Structures are given as structure tokens and as C-alpha cells.
């Protein structure tokens, strides 16, 4: 949650692993985890932030996991932890860059220019990035990782009902924006 634009919402890292001492599954090495999760994480970061910073954001999220791998590896779903970190960093980065860009445009008295769109798929993510933070995260998790409501709620640390609302509102907003005439889009 960004208190700034709104009241606080759940955000970032999950709670550390419990003190339970029984290991029910083998602990994966970070390298195996990294190689398996990185491509989708870069895609996820790119969807939420734009491709220019995707690798950096995914790498920062992985670095955060690497630094505390002994804890993260023992979580039920380590990938959910790193996806949540990535989701928050990606949206923050996008919003920060957008604010900076608007400021620069104001200073130079130019009209706000739309983000260049390469194709229909890129246009879809550009629309997603303009959704409210949580809606964008829920939509990206749903499509990129093919996650359902329960998994998204676990990833973002919020209630399933909240995810349903964001998913529904996000889809509706995307439908409204994408079906408008091309001149109006973005």
C-alpha cells in the first residue's frame, strides 16, 4: 500500500520463516532457484515497469533474496517472496520515472507524449502500467504466471477478496481503455 496516494496496502516482503525446525522438503540452492525463476521474473518486471529497467529490477529482487537465502529458501513458496519484492520495486520504479518525465516535460513546456508502443502486446502492458498499483500487480501476476486468486493473494499478502476486486476492476478498466479508438488510447 502506498499511503501516499492512498491508504496503505500490503507491500513487499513476506514475514520471515517460522521457527519450525522440521524441514519437510529439501532446501533448493540459490543458483537453481535463480536460473529457473529469472526469465519469468524479468518478464514480470518488464510488464510492470517497461522493458528498460526490467533486468535491473528483477536482479535487485533476486539480490534481496540472495542476501537472505537461508530464510527465503525455507518459505513455503520462495518464488512468491521474490515476485512480491519485484512487483513493488517495478511499480515504484515506473511511477517514479513517470513523475520525473512529467516534470521534465513541464519544464520544457512540451506536451505530454505517449509511451511509444511497439505492438499490440506491448500496448497491453502499457495499459496495465497505467492502472492503480495493486490492480497492475494483480493483472501481471495473473497473466504472466497464470496464477489464480488464491496464489495471487498469497504472493501479495492480501485477502482473496481483495484480489478478486482488483482483478475485476483491472480487467474492466483494461477493457474500457483498449476498446476505445486508437487515437484515444494512451
Amino acid at each position, binding site marked *: 500500500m*502506498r499511503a*501516499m496516494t492512498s*491508504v*496503505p496496502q500490503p*507491500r513487499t516482503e513476506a514475514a520471515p520463516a517460522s521457527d519450525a525446525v522440521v524441514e519437510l522438503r529439501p532446501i533448493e540452492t540459490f543458483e537453481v532457484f535463480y536460473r529457473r525463476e529469472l526469465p519469468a521474473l*524479468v518478464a514480470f518486471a518488464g*510488464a510492470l515497469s517497461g522493458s528498460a529497467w526490467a533486468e535491473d529490477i528483477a536482479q535487485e529482487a533476486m539480490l534481496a533474496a540472495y542476501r537472505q537465502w537461508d530464510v527465503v529458501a525455507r518459505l513455503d513458496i520462495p518464488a512468491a517472496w521474490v515476485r512480491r519484492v519485484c512487483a513493488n520495486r517495478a511499480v515504484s520504479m515506473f*511511477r517514479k520515472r513517470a513523475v520525473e518525465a512529467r516534470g521534465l516535460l513541464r519544464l520544457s513546456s512540451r506536451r505530454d507524449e505517449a509511451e511509444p508502443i511497439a505492438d499490440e502486446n506491448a500496448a497491453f502492458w502499457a495499459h496495465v502500467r497505467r492502472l492503480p498499483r495493486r*490492480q497492475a500487480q494483480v493483472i501481471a501476476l495473473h497473466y504472466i504466471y497464470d496464477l489464480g486468486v488464491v496464489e495471487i493473494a498469497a504472493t501479495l*499478502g492480501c485477502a482473496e477478496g481483495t484480489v478478486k476486486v482488483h482483478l475485476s476492476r483491472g480487467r474492466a478498466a483494461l477493457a474500457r481503455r483498449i476498446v476505445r479508438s486508437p487515437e484515444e488510447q494512451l
Partner: protein
Amino acid sequence: MSIDDLGRAAATDVRRKATQEIDPTRMLKQLRRKQRNRSVATAVAVVGVVAAGTILVANGALPGHHQSGNTASRPSPSPTISGPCHNALVTCLGGNKYLVALTVPVTVTLPANFQGAFAQSGNASGVFEDYRTDNANAGITVMENATPVKYDASWSQDPTAGNTAASIATWLSKRPFLSHTSLTRTIVGGRAAWRVSGDLKPGAALPAEKNGTGPVAPTFTDTPYNTAGYRPGLTGQYTLLDVPGAGVTVIWSWSNTNQGLISNQAYIDGLSFG
């Protein structure tokens, strides 16, 4: 084509591109190098702080010592490779201290249970917030030049609140949507402050709509972008102080539980202004 079809096609496309374009082996090496550099940087920063402390002692600049005419060294900004030091808003002062460039700069002594996100939103320069590492539903928002707002949908200033930290704290403690409120005096960063706690009354009206998060009982805003309020499942504690140049500054501690607020306290205790 439905939104679902578009979304799935777009996801397939972005995953395919990522798989084609990234080199995990190269990136893994880069990640490990970053971690090594960070460890070295931390060690350098620690040595720097110790050295600076030694110089301060030698110059008699520590409390209880005579101040000489020499200029004591300050710890230089940390050369940390990533994290808060990459935030344009933040100057890393070494150790766990950070200077956040709000209208009036804020020094943060970061507790271990906070991220150091120093996140900003909107185009305001008077607000940042930070988040817990051990609780996804808790954090702190610092809002300079905070405006108390009416209990309606307008997010407009409530003139009955007054314009000092003391009067606004009293106003807040009497908001009709709060119960079990308390108002206490405290000190933050050496300045007098007022702390208000309270719970949202069951069934209280939530007249102000917030983009993306639904309705709230509004409390403060500083611009059209940055707002604070109560909603079910989100409890809060507000600390207010008068900061020259930053008007009434609000430190909003928020969490889904009262225990979460208690664990936020170290962050507030580590704040100073100006």
C-alpha cells in the same frame, strides 16, 4: 478478442522475449559481484565511520569535550552499490542513517525491520513512506505540510482543526469515526510532538474514495496525490509536530494490527527534522 485472450498473448510474448534476451549465467555472476562489492562497501563505510569518530574525539567535538577550531570530518556518503543509496531522494550517511530530501530534510535511523524504501508518489516533495520487512501490512508515512481534511468526500481542509500540531492532534483525537482514542505528548527528534491513537468505529461511514483502495475515513492530505485515512483492517497512530519550513508534519504509523504499530515505533524514534 477478449481481455483474457489479449492478456495471455501479451504474457506469452513478454516471457518469450525475456527468455531469449537474458543470459542467466552472466546475470548470476553480476549478482554475486554486486553482493561482494556491497560487503566491501559496508566494511569501508564502517571503517570510515570509525575513522571519523576518531577524528571527532581528537578534535574534542564529541559531547563533553572542548570544541577546537578544526573542522571535524563527517562520514561521507556510503558507496553502497544498491538499495536506498540508489534513490535520488536519499543521501546515505553511513551505517543505518539516511537523509531524505523532503521540503525540510528528514534524517532516518533505519531499524532492522524496515526496508529503507523511502518511496514517494505523486509529484509532491513533502512525503515519503517506508515498509516493514517482517510484516507486509505495516509501515510508516512521513507527510510534511499536512492538511487535516473534512469528514466527507472532498479531501478539502477542515478549518476547525487549527494550524498547529497541538490543535490538529486534538482535532484528530475527536474525529467522530474514531473510538478508544488517546492523545499523549512525546518527543521526536528533539522536538515536542503529539501522538494520537484510535480505532475506527465499527460501521463508521467511509465517505472519501481512494483510487485503487476503496473508501476511507479521511484524515490528512498534502496534495491531491497524497492522502491518509482509516479503513477497516487498517489501524493507525499519528504523531504530529511543528517543523519550521514544513508546517505541521505528520508521522503516520499504519498496520493491520496494534502489535504492528508497536513494532513501527523504532522507526519514529529514529526520525529527526531539519
